[in-house]
């Protein structure tokens, strides 16, 4: 099965040294080609507050075992 997955899946490292920064820049540039530009941003205070609450949900047994 492992051999099977190796035949079906590839990764960036298969094509040379991985440059994550360049990959991100190229993806951003691809959005720009479709007229979407960006402003680098961080989470706002109210978003950080919500993250703290949501993090508890994602850690919880109830959320992760609900099915």
């Amino acid at each position, binding site marked *: 099965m492992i051999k099977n997955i190796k*035949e079906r*899946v590839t990764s*960036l490292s298969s094509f040379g040294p991985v440059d994550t920064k360049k*990959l991100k820049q190229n993806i951003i540039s*691809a959005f720009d080609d479709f007229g979407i530009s960006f402003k*680098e941003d961080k*989470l706002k205070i109210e978003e950080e507050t919500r993250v703290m*609450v*949501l*993090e508890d949900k994602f850690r919880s047994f109830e959320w992760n075992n609900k099915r």
Partner: protein
Amino acid sequence: MKWRLINNDADNAFRNMAVDEALLQSIVPVLRFYSWKPKAVSIGYFQSLDAEVDTKACKARDIDVVRRITGGGAVFHDQELTYSVICPEELFSFDILESYQQICGFIVKGLKKYGLDAKFVPINDITIKGKKISGNAQSRKQGKIIQHGTILLDVDADEMFKVLKVPDEKMK
């Protein structure tokens, strides 16, 4: 309107998923890049944890396990770039398959600019030379689309098979 670009460092699975859900409140569309530390397994919203993941193996290896708010299958997050696109539904097709093609189209073009011959393969994969390099999963909540996607930087298939329960028929 300029989109928000949120370029996060590696973080744990629970915070990663919490940040994406919190960003559903953003009025401005978001492209977020992130990765996972420690390694993690995420399962799709509709999946059974017991059916998909060897939780004991994960615990023994300090691998986080988390349920996503998006659909799709179980994913082992190790050496990868993860992205999320969070935006109002009306920015892309209301048809889910078309919207996968539209959003994955940015990633395909980005990979082409990187120098790789990437292709979108319905329903929600991106391949290079016929092999999958990116999987995607989507959900729609509160009038927003959230799409998670991964781009594999490297693969440790041995460890992947130690933590995921992959049915034989999936490998055919």
